[in-house]
């Protein structure tokens, strides 16, 4: 595509005053994962409580969501595995993270001057990541059993109630993470949605929220 006003910025043409935060592949994986999660959460809640069962009708009927929920779950799990491959080095816990977590109350109160500088992901994002990663593992293991209970021998049926309980409990943990993630990215930290849509953030944004990462990618001390 030639240039023009509608042309998207590319990696080779970083807009003035901005830096690339997420590549196209990262964004695509993120949104595939996010849409899959949204479907899983809505259908899961429909099957979790009669209060939300009307959602089953909205999404095609009870039998339909029963059929698709496990398949979409596989997509969800696969995208998290891919995230793990992409971000392995970015999500390692550091000493600064431990300090950050101690001061998390200050972060919540927007007293960011008291927070130690953070890398590409801050310690809270890493916590969110691990909550979603481990809940996904539990959801996949329990979910596969719940997918085909008819193949379970009668003598093993006693584990089924434990399995469904764990599946629901893990889902609730992930919903807590999901709600906080959505709140923080859309409302609490302006610029995050842009980072995950066109991929770029302003230099000031990068410096404010992820100082160490900014210094690393630009080679600048500020």
């Amino acid at each position: 595509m030639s240039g023009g006003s509608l042309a998207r910025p590319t990696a080779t043409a970083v807009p003035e005053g901005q830096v690339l935060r997420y590549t196209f592949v990262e964004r695509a994986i993120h949104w595939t994962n996010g849409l899959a999660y949204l479907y899983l959460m809505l259908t899961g809640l429909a099957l979790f409580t009669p209060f939300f069962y009307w959602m089953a009708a909205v999404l095609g009927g009870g039998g339909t969501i029963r059929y698709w929920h496990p398949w979409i779950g596989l997509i969800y799990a696969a995208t998290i595995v891919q995230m793990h491959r992409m971000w392995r080095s970015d999500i390692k816990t550091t000493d600064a993270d431990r300090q950050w977590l101690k001061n998390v109350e200050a972060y919540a109160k927007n007293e960011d001057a008291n927070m130690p500088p953070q890398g590409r992901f801050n310690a809270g994002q890493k916590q969110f990541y691990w909550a979603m990663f481990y809940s996904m593992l539990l959801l996949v293991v329990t979910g596969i059993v719940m997918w085909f209970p008819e193949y379970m021998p009668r003598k093993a049926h006693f584990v089924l109630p434990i399995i469904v309980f764990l599946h629901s409990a893990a889902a609730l943990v992930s919903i807590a993470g999901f709600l906080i993630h959505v709140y923080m990215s859309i409302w609490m930290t302006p610029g995050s949605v842009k980072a995950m849509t066109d991929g770029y953030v302003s230099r000031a944004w990068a410096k404010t929220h992820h100082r160490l990462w900014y210094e690393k990618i630009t080679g600048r001390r500020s």
Partner: protein
Amino acid sequence: MSNGAMEIKAISGHRGGTPGGGEYRQPDGTTRTGTSRDYDVCKLVDTTTCIGCKACEVACLEWNGYDFRETTFDDTYQTMPDTAWNFWNLIRFNEYENDDGTISWLMRKDQCMHCADPGCLTACPADGAIVQYQNGIVDFNQEHCIGCQYCVTGCPFNIPKFNDVTKKVYKCTLCSDRVGAGLEPACIKSCPTGCLHFGSKEDMLFEANKRVKQLHDNTSYSKAGVYDPEGVGGTHVIYVLHDAENPERYGGLPKNPTVPFMVKMWKGPLKWVGGLAMTFGVLGMFMHYVRYGPKEVHEEKKP
């Protein structure tokens, strides 16, 4: 059986009250909700007079319109190892060796027990897929079933069976269609020895206890008793057993069946904790935004 017996008492996956349920007047003038003993129906299976003829198996298939399934020969008279989605009534044959070396040949008609506290209904997420009628019958409505098999998870008797083609679950209806028309269930009608009885729960318990007393007084079955397990609130199918202390000998009849603890936790506290956490979580985030607002980024002035 006309007034109220086949009104719905409890319903699966349903928000709010039970449609058509609620208070009703008893013959003595008092009003109450829930089960009225006058409407309670019950099957009584007297294992001490069952001869294992399987007439009830055939009657069940005939009335419900299923073809006879393939049978499995396992060196006993038992038709197949377990009940199936289209085979709801199975006589279980068990040979138990007594302490004195003699053999007890135990036969038990296995089918849905129609629990007063049904684990299947508790676990079911689909609105209207499982209903419990005022008369105690627990019935599956396949048109609302979504095939998740949570009912299998909730049942302590291993009764609901999944059909892999229709993706729905089936079980004994206690012939709700016949009972609603004032008839006895098909199995009861076919029994040649009179080991199967049908009537109100109160009458069946009376008959059962009478039979137990007869066994105590006139036979060596000193441990004979009635099986009406309290853990599931009592059942609408009760047994007279030669040895009520060891129901497991009758093809795995559980001694003290209950709705599984984790199912109660899942459908009770976890549901409430989860709902409250989500509600207050969203409210809390809103209040956080109102109190602290977004994180500002101070743009650098261009030199």
